[in-house]
């Protein structure tokens, strides 16, 4: 090579670039060892961090550290102090008094008071948060007895009232920022102000969300972490790589494809827990449109469930991240009643029921044809749909799968444009919160997502829902919810397939990220990194 100015400059540039690039490995390692930082895998990116406007799971994971509610919940769903340090309920179940912590400040330094709670639960959330609107509709009046005491008087008893104060269901918002404004367009939506242990520092769209420690947090010496990064990783294989090479410390829900779970379970580098999902308790369900053809007959609905081997699904499609379901209430939900195996896998029994209905096989062995609207939420759901088709085909029910995308699925589902579909629903800790909307006849509303889409109507079920929610006597209430479950199992408006068991995967050395029934959606105030 000729030694001249041009060649020297080119060589220097190449050397600098190479040194910079390949120095990165050591820099990465240094950063990873920086104390007090946790990196959480996040996908998809939340549309907003204002929990009043959006309650997507990723938004809850991030904003659960920014906002708080009055309560939080232990793994058995018993309420624990949140912003409320103590509470009381009158004997008639109509008056609830919450005493709030007194030294709490918003992230902008303003004091948190009872007025914020009343504003949030009586004005702001009912206007923008559909679940909160339904829950707080039971409230007749909310009064600030003093700056740090809130009294709710209910129109009638609502026994699930103490279960509604988890951070995504009732985030407490700053009145001084939102009152008398357009809640949906308030500039604070882009930079949320909460009372939580962490504050938003930066959100680089498409890349990451960065939270930093709230130095004025009301609990002394907390939080333990200095900062949290939520790295947005859209590809599932990349998420696995990120976990394995230490780029992220924690993943939750189904961010890691379950096909990798057997491998991860065998690794010494990770701790895996199924705790922290007791409030959500998702139930995978084969949903029926009971208005449609043979699905109007419960024998047909029962036969279909008999024909599906759910143990096979749990083992081979969900790779052990699921548990058998016994009914429409998940085992971690309050008032769950174990009624034994739910329509055990028995294809002979399925055929008996179909024969009873007069459904004989034609020349091709087909007794009936049903359409299945596939759930477009990933590979596992696609495989589940294929397995359902295969299973039902074995008893002479020809299933035609209709594929679509999430927007179309939600629209068709809400407008009853399906015969069967697959879905999963959160229970929110209590049958009144999770089940009424799916099975009460008053909840049959075309075009409304999360309603009684099956079209199921049973006056006895309606009565039990209406009475149980007001029944102060615990024993009677428990009996009523037990009866409800038995009737819903008998009528089977929808077919519960299995309880989904999400997994939180943490690299060794990460502590206390799962401390409540909402798992990684919690505030992380005691989370730490060794």
């Amino acid at each position, binding site marked *: 090579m000729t030694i001249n100015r041009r060649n020297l400059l080119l060589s220097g540039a190449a050397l600098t670039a190479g040194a910079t690039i390949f120095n990165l490995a050591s820099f990465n390692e240094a950063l990873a060892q920086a104390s007090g930082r946790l990196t959480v895998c996040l996908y998809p990116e939340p549309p907003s961090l204002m929990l009043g406007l*959006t309650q997507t799971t990723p938004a809850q994971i991030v904003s659960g550290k920014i906002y708080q509610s009055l309560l939080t919940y232990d793994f058995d769903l018993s309420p624990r102090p949140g912003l409320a340090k103590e509470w009381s309920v009158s004997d008639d179940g109509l008056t609830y008094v919450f005493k709030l912590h007194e030294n709490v400040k918003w992230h902008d330094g303003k004091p948190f008071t009872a007025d914020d709670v009343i504003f949030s639960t009586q004005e702001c959330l009912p206007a923008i948060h559909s679940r909160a609107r339904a829950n707080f509709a039971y409230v007749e009046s909310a009064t600030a007895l003093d700056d740090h005491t809130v009294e709710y008087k209910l129109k009638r008893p609502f026994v699930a009232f103490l279960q509604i104060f988890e951070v995504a269901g009732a985030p407490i918002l700053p009145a001084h920022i939102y009152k008398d404004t357009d809640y949906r367009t308030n500039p604070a939506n882009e930079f949320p102000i909460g009372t939580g242990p962490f504050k938003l520092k930066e959100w680089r769209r498409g890349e990451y969300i960065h939270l930093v420690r709230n130095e004025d947090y009301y609990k002394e010496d907390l939080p333990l972490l200095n900062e949290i990064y939520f790295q947005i990783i859209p590809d599932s294989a990349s998420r696995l790589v990120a976990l*394995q090479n230490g780029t992220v410390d924690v993943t939750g829900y189904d961010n890691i494809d379950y096909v990798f779970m057997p491998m991860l379970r065998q690794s010494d580098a990770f701790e895996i827990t199924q705790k922290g999902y007791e409030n959500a308790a998702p139930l995978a369900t084969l949903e029926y449109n009971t208005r449609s053809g043979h699905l109007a007959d419960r024998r047909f609905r029962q036969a279909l469930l008999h024909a599906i081997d759910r143990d096979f699904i749990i083992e081979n499609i969900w790779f052990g991240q699921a548990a058998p379901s016994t009914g429409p209430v998940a085992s971690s939900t309050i008032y769950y009643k174990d009624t034994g195996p739910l329509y055990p896998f028995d294809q002979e029994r399925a055929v008996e029921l179909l024969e009873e209905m007069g459904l004989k096989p034609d020349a091709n062995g087909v007794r009936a044809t049903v359409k299945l609207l596939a759930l477009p939420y990933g590979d596992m759901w696609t495989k589940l749909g294929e397995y359902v088709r295969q299973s039902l085909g074995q008893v002479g029910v020809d299933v035609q799968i209709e594929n679509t995308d999430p927007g179309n699925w939600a629209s068709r589902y809400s407008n009853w444009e399906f015969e069967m579909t697959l879905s999963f629903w959160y229970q929110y800790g209590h049958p009144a919160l999770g089940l009424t909307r799916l099975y009460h006849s008053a909840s049959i509303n075309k075009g409304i997502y999360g309603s009684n889409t099956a079209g199921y109507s049973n006056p006895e079920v309606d009565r039990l829902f209406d009475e149980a929610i007001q029944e102060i006597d615990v024993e009677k209430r428990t009996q009523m919810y037990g009866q409800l479950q038995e009737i819903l199992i008998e009528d089977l408006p929808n077919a519960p397939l299995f309880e989904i068991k999400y997994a939180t995967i943490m690299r060794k050395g990460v502590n206390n990220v799962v401390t409540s029934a909402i798992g990684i959606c919690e505030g992380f105030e005691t989370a730490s990194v060794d």
Partner: protein
Amino acid sequence: MVKTGLGRAIKILLVLLSVIVINFALVRFAPGDPVSVIAGEAGASDAAFIASLREEFQLDKPIPVQLAAYLASVVRGDLGYSYRQRRPVADLIWERMPATLLLTGSAFVLSLLVGSAFGTFAGLNRGGWGDNALLVVCLLGYALPAFWLGLVLVLIFSVWLQWLPAFGMQTLGYTGGWWAQAGDVLSHLILPCITLSAYYIALYTRVMRSSMADVQTADFIKTAYAKGLSRGRIIGVHMLRNAALPVVTLAGVQAGQLIGGSIVVETVFAWPGIGRLALDALLQREYMVLLGVFVVTSIMVIALNIISDIILAIVDPRIKRSAA
């Protein structure tokens, strides 16, 4: 000249108008709407919630009215508002644009330079071992799907060798100086850039190879040799300039394709570009965001085609003379 310029401007406006109207119709007539997606994300909804959202999103108005309102806003330079993300569409696009320009620009330059170099070598050495090896490389470049190639590169260079980061545009919390940060971004750019360029490197190699082979046998090249010019000068000054014409034409087309083709690469590598923004907007029925991306990318493609035409006229003076 003025007439030509005016004619071209009218054509450009007509293309943009068609893009907006056709895509508006396609997106609006697709089943589902943003309200159903938001209701799904909320996990519950009621009639009041649905009605308030429809009113806010102006989905309660007739479609022609919605289209007219959108056209009027685009003329004013307003690409609309994302009701799901609660931000102007223009902001969402502009903040992602640098990432896309960096990725696609790098891939464009890389594929042009490497493809031209490979093609030149292969064209000058037709039938030799180097030419045959490059043909195999081209075949792989055409055949390998981008997402597969990307994942394999991650496996080799990030997981096994741990030389390069697996995804993202920068290291979280990086606090080095400007040059160090640039190096950090560059290290993240390498794998996605190679993945995105692979197909186009193969394409340019083949085109350049054929072109060089044709030019080599031209009379003016024989004349140049006869005049005693050096081989290096003949190749660099006479052959390349003529052989490059089809490559320049193709480059203008590629530039537009690159912007669309980056969706897969951006997803695999978690690169925060507008490709991913468009994909997310499609799945979430965010009409305004999707249309905004279409408008902006259409303008970019049109601009790149104009630039390509100008460069072609510079490289080949015959084009300017024939236009005159």
